[in-house]
């Protein structure tokens, strides 16, 4: 409850500590207790300084109280653009916790894990149907790792051809992980400026490719303005004609599931953020999962192992001599795969298309509702998200950050701020298909009220938030003299 008591600071768990309190009990040890000084000698450490001593109810209250300072999808619209903060169905949580999944050890013999392999196989098939690609690896832990995985496969394919192309083209509107992943895959990044319309500049791509040494282009469809890339097919053609590859950032797949397919766009690799399009929860930061779908050209280089049919059953196959190897331990974030497949089953083919339609509909409704009050720097049709800027509020001394903070007072999370970089003072709004009319209207109302406040009482917006558990923070102090852990 929001009474003062829980609004009052809850100290750190270490500060709740009192000698002799415990929050656990271990099974009674029947075997002889070993004296670790004997068995481990000099490697034995003493008591660990600072660990807390708290009871079970201490822990429950501590984390329950902490939780109440969070905003979450379970409480309301969470328009964080590019993150697809949709509803996380509870049935998925229930299923992921079935002992047959949760307790499964990754190194059990193959005949004991047939259900898990079947599930992975089914998920791969579903993702293939959705993407129109040739194969999928479920191994990457998140989108960024998917990008890296895809780029490593491209690198390996080029190596196989004996080519040493080093340049990866990335539009200036791309997500930060794109250039970072390209670099960690051993490439150099050449940024491509977007057209005045905010889309991929085909001619710039053509020129860059013509210069030679281009390994791939990483594009996002729809792009980070929520706008479809009309020339994506042409760009693919340019790349392929040159022997380069097209990597698609699939973070925005929610906009077109069942409507268009990356395969038809000419993608050679694309990652799918299961924690976006396929509803696995964001967990306050993760874990997610970032399967990568590839064209036939890249199939030989998939990470090992892959799930393959064998007789009536399935095996984990390591028989892929050209593989890039492994990108993480074991086989992927399996419990996330369970949730994603459950979501796909729950919606079915038509439901998935309706999902994409719903997402696009909601974003356009928000666009319509706000374009009278906020400036829309790019005018092309909106798909699943819409990016405004703060240029109409700036004259009153109100920035996008102020608007975001004031939204918190209105009971909403803020949009994504200052991304894409091609928009100054950006506010990127992605409502998702989970929102129904009432919630969207309340959000639009709040945004319009803030626009009015920006004109009439700008200091209210600049001072916001006022009703949150804490007010604006001193971020400079945090960075200048970092305190990153508690000390007694």
């Amino acid at each position, binding site marked *: 409850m929001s009474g003062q008591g829980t609004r009052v600071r809850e100290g*750190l768990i270490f500060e709740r500590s009192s000698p002799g309190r415990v929050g*656990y009990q271990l*099974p009674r040890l029947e075997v002889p207790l070993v004296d670790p000084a004997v068995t481990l000698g000099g490697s034995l450490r003493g008591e660990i300084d600072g660990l807390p001593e708290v009871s079970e109810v201490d822990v429950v209250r501590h984390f329950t109280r902490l939780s109440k300072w969070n905003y979450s999808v379970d409480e309301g619209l969470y328009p964080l653009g590019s993150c697809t903060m949709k509803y996380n169905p509870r*049935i998925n949580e229930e299923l992921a916790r079935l002992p047959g999944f949760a307790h499964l050890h990754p190194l059990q013999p193959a005949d004991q894990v047939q259900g898990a392999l079947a599930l992975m196989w089914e998920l791969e098939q579903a993702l293939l149907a959705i993407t129109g690609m040739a194969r999928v690896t479920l191994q990457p832990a998140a*989108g960024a790792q998917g990008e890296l995985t895809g780029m490593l496969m491209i690198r390996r394919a080029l190596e196989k051809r004996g080519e040493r192309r080093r340049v990866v083209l990335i539009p200036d509107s791309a997500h930060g992980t794109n250039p970072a992943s390209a670099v960690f895959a051993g490439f150099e990044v050449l940024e491509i400026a977007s057209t005045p319309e905010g889309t991929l500049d085909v001619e710039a791509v053509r020129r860059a490719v013509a210069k030679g040494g281009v390994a791939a282009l990483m594009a996002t469809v729809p792009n980070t303005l929520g706008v479809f890339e009309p020339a994506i097919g042409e760009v693919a053609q340019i790349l392929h004609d040159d022997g380069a590859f097209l990597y698609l950032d699939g973070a925005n797949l929610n906009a077109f599931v069942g409507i268009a397919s990356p395969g038809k766009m000419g993608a050679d690799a694309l990652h799918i953020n299961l924690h976006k399009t396929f509803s696995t929860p964001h967990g306050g930061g993760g874990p997610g999962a970032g399967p990568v779908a590839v064209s036939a050209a890249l199939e030989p280089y998939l990470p090992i192992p892959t799930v393959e049919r064998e007789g009536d059953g399935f095996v984990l196959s390591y028989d892929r001599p050209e593989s890039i190897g492994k990108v993480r331990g074991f086989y992927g974030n399996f419990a996330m795969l369970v949730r994603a497949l459950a979501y796909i089953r729950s919606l079915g083919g038509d439901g*998935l298309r309706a999902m994409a339609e719903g997402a696009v509909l909601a974003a356009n409704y928000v666009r319509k509702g706000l374009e009278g009050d906020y400036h829309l720097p790019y005018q092309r049709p909106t798909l699943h998200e819409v990016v405004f800027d703060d240029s109409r509020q700036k004259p009153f001394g109100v920035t996008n950050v102020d608007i975001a903070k004031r939204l918190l007072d209105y009971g909403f999370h803020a949009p994504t*701020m200052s991304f894409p970089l091609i928009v100054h003072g950006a506010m990127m709004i992605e409502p998702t298909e989970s929102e129904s*009319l009432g919630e969207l209207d309340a959000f639009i109302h709040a945004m319009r009220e803030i626009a009015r406040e920006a004109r009439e009482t700008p200091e209210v917006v600049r001072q916001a938030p006022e009703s949150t558990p804490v007010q604006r923070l001193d971020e400079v102090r945090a960075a200048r003299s970092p305190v990153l852990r508690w000390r007694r």
Partner: protein
Amino acid sequence: MHRYLAGEADRRAMLEAIGVASVEELFADIPAAVRVGELPLGPARSEDEVRREFWAYALRNTTPECAASFLGAGVYRHTVPAVADALLQRGEFFTAYTPYQPEVSQGTLQAIFEFQTFVCQLTEQDVANASLYDGATAVVEAVLLAGRVGGSRRRVVVAESLHPDYRRVLETYCSAQGMEVTPLPWDRAGMADVEALPRLVGEDVCAVVVQSPNVFGIVEPLAAVAEAARGCGALAVQAVAEATSLGLLVPGGRFGFDVVCGDLQAFGVPPAFGGPHVGFFAARERHLRQMPGRLVGETVDRAGRRAFVLTLATREQHIRRAKATSNICTNHGLVALYVAIVLSLLGKRGVRELAVASHSVAEFVKAGIGRSGKLALVFPGSPTYNEFLLRHDDPEGLLQRLRGQGILGGVPTTRLAPHLPPGVLIAATEQNTTDECLRLIAALEAVA
């Protein structure tokens, strides 16, 4: 009409407000050439039907509970406090995202700050981040950090007793970075061969990586490794795959290791067929600006109240892009929260008691196996924590015979990597009852 979507009236009202006749008009920008027909994914299913399908998958798996299980090799079965999952399931935690708006994210932020503190305490390091994907990628990040710090040094010396999955992942990343991996063999005790180390290191080495306890469960001579690394100007990196061992074993931090990293799965995280678990990364203060991943720092709000915030973000991809210290974005924060809850519950006594109990059970099994005379360890006499390697030429066959008696006797090294000595990695924890241990010992003697 679907339970996850808005209703018909909602849709009509939206279409009308937008001024289009159908949703299709909103997709006008998407050319026919990339369009698809109906997805062949069947109809929408009810919860009942989805449950039926998934229960069927789950039932085709055999969970270790159905047997006496001694599987480890990177994933360990320890006590799972009911509280941890119950708290993690609060919607405020699991349906939020990265705490970009600290004013409405103090719950996540404070919990991560506590997590960072726990990791520093366990590892005796100065700073720890807000999680990485898993142990394997944590080791990668350590080596990449060393590469950045080391300038032109492009070689990494890596103990062969590193978990083979960690090693494989490291190789994937290193090859793209043009970094070379030099194997550091194990000696007759199954430990990193510190005698050989001086020959293997050099001015071109940016990091020396060992895992302790290593893949054989053996405690490594960390002090000597640290010294050798320091000697050549390389960073010393300790990997930890069985994190509960930190309740008993001096961590690399004490010996000046630059990075201690690995996976915290052992603190009650469900095995879940391999993930999600949670990578951790702790380092010396001097490497702070080169750390991968998110960091939460303490500060104050306008009213002067203590509060927490993401900090030093200039290291990260969303700001630094191509120059970021890592490409990680979505991390494993919820599992980090889970581990923070488990560590809170265990606390000072529990962290140690858990390690002592687990170690005691494993020592009991090890002693039992040794007593028979029929069975031998590959590295007898070397200090192990809760896992050890039984010598056997046909480990898969041996294990198959144990299964008939309801025993999952361990992981065959043949399944892990070809370079390991043939045998069975046997892990025992406080979850193994004495009866299970005795059955394992007897069964091994009978079939060995």
